[in-house]
């Protein structure tokens, strides 16, 4: 089985191991050939967070490569969590990215499947899906623990069957995670998939956006019952809503993101929906931080950077 302790290469992991709550913000890199907007945004978040989580062409829409964005962020003193999807690259591409990530100082990886190309702005692109997300996890895990580039197949050469594993000089130290959808928790398919990911080597879960604290509590209980809670750090995602309209959009378009009607109603009835969004998010985050089993909070940026800063300030003030 996957009996290894998380590599303590990253300050983020150290903090998690010490039982401190971590704060991360998930951003999508800009659709730009320049670094300014990315670095400006990151700079404003720096005082409040432990790491920036960089999406990989999220929603199947082209944005600056997250490897490049991560390299820029690292050069400016940020810690990053790199997401890698299985939609856009085959195993050769993914493994070369993993090696490249390690060389650039990226230690935290989240493996995702990725939305189908039809969901995004390049519906004409070819969906790759060579590896499944648990296979990508396994790949990163084997690179870390065995120091090899794994072979998923044997090569048949005239001289016979050869294994094509090769060793990596200075193996990477990946802290590997996956995205999970709490609203699916409890059903059998969900359980078997998550068990597979855990067996493949994940050490943390980042949930899909959750706007219902009680829901998270139940989710954590289910993880406990499944025997999954023990070896995993759970970071819960949330994000300040800016209007009832955008809340409905998130509910309908982001897979697995469930927003209770009461929350939408509160935003709709508020005089200042943006302020109310910040207030709701702050309340929920405060409650989540106190909840046993919640290792960290991840705020997802969806054109609400200012609200996110406001929430982080509120919480920072509270903690300070």
């Amino acid at each position: 089985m996957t009996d290894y302790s998380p590599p303590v290469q990253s300050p983020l992991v150290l903090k998690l191991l010490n039982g401190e709550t971590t704060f991360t913000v998930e951003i999508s890199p800009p659709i730009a050939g320049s670094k300014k907007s990315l670095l400006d945004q990151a700079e404003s978040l720096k005082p409040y967070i432990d790491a920036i989580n960089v999406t990989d062409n999220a929603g199947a829409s082209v944005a600056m490569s997250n490897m490049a964005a991560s390299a820029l962020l690292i050069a400016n003193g940020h810690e990053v969590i790199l997401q890698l999807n299985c939609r856009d690259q085959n195993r050769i591409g993914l493994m070369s990215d993993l090696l490249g990530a390690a060389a650039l100082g990226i230690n935290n990886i989240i493996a995702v499947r990725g939305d189908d190309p039809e969901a995004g702005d390049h519906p004409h692109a070819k969906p790759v899906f060579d590896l499944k997300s648990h296979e990508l996890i396994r790949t990163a895990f084997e690179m870390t623990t065995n120091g090899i580039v794994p072979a998923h197949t044997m090569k048949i050469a005239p001289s016979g069957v050869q294994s094509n594993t090769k060793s990596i000089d200075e193996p990477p130290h990946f802290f590997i995670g996956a995205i999970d959808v709490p609203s699916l928790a409890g059903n059998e398919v969900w359980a078997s998939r998550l068990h597979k990911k855990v067996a493949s080597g994940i050490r943390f879960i980042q949930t899909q956006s959750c706007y219902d604290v009680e829901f998270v509590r139940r989710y954590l209980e289910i993880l406990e019952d499944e025997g999954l809670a023990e070896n995993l750090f759970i970071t819960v995602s949330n994000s300040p809503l800016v209007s009832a309209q955008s809340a409905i959009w998130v509910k309908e378009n982001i897979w697995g993101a469930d927003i209770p009607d009461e929350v939408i109603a509160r935003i709709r009835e508020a005089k200042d929906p943006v302020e109310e969004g910040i207030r709701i998010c702050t309340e929920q985050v405060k409650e989540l931080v106190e909840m046993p089993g919640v290792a960290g909070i991840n705020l997802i940026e969806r054109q609400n950077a200012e609200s996110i800063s406001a929430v982080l300030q509120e919480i920072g003030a509270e903690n300070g």
Partner: protein
Amino acid sequence: MLKMASADTAIIAPVGRLRSWSVRHARFWEIMYQMFLPLLRFARPIITLFPDAFIRPLTTAVERSLKATFFDCNMCGDCVLSSTGMSCPMNCPKSIRNGPCGGVRENGNCEVEPDMRCVWLDAWSGAAKMQNAAKNGWQINTLQTPLDRSLDGQSSWLTVMNENAHDTAATQKVVSPSKPSTSPLFKKLNEQSVTLTAEYNPPDTTDPSKILAGAQSLLEVCDAVNVVDGAGGNTHISSLSVCTLLAQAGHDPVMQISCRDKNRIAIQGEALGAAALGIKNILCLTGDGINAGDQPGAKPVFDLDCSTLLGTLKTMRDEGQFTTGKPIDTPPDFYLGATANPSAIEPEIEVERIAKKIEAGAQFIQTQFCFDPEVFQLFFDRYTARGLHEQAKFLVGVGPLSSAKAGLWMRNNIAGIRIPDSLLERLEKAHDQKAEGISICVELIEAYLKMDGIAGLHIMAFQQPDKVTEIVRRAGLRT
């Protein structure tokens, strides 16, 4: 895995024969098509009387069975048979829409499937038989755009039927002129008499200092290094990340992008990232076949090919948008390159293929190894006669052979490489084969540099930087 593939080819051999019959009778199919096309358009008002749910599956089924029989059609949904000599490009294992690739074997067979004749050589011979070659210029010279993968499995006939005849004629786009590049490599190519680039195969390490050290030794004598992207289908550290380290250390790398491992979403994202990091030079490649490398079970992607990749990056730079029309904030400033194979068995086709790449956006050309000045001359005369050396900077690929045995291995295993027997014999007889290999390389360089139209050299010596230094110094190019 590989054995399975050859067994499959044996089973489908009769179908393959019918496909080559169709290519041999391309003129017949052209006449059929010319008769069929007006018929399709004529049928349109009648067909619209029936519900789509009835017509679509019916047409698709008829089209599929007919075209599968005669062309081994894969129903890509965007049929270009009449522009490709009635040889379906989707049967190319790299599904190249603008071919052939540089890996055609000496017998004209495919690099990936050694028992199959190159689909694109077939296409060119089919095109020669078609009337449109004489009348409207060669349709096979048309630059094909990236294939719309969402059409997979759909009927092309219905698309043609619904198309306005007027629309198809007006597809030519206004091309905006490119601004002069800000790339240091561009500057050197324009100011120096001989520019030197070297191929860099980074070690399998995650230690940035080791990665930088390897490139640094090459940069002592060369102007820039090319960072390979999964060369030979093997898993190595990503080109983007190595180029990032080089750019951060103040160098001007050439980032190679291959179409084998990434779709257009990932590639365009990487291109934007490269721009943000100050990486200016991008060499576009179709990429070696999967079977050549260490991951034979990997899925070949080939969403784009070299030419469509060039076009995609050119659109990003010159129009400030993706090919879909979505705008880009601060468009990238790329200096774009492509590859050529001077030893290709059909030099005429190779020259036309490079002309297509230049049309698509290539501003510099780096070639595969060429070990035979006579073969090179044959190719290069055609190339310069076409005026292509004035449209893109041309760098000839050279490199040392370390022994006769290594040379033989290269000839047999690296697609598209030709090494004359006389050269191997010379190595064999030499007292010190390594030194002889370097002497041969220096002689080749001297021969190439005598020719007009050569802007520089691209030196490839797999993980032997000291050999590169020796070659450059002995050729008297740098001190």
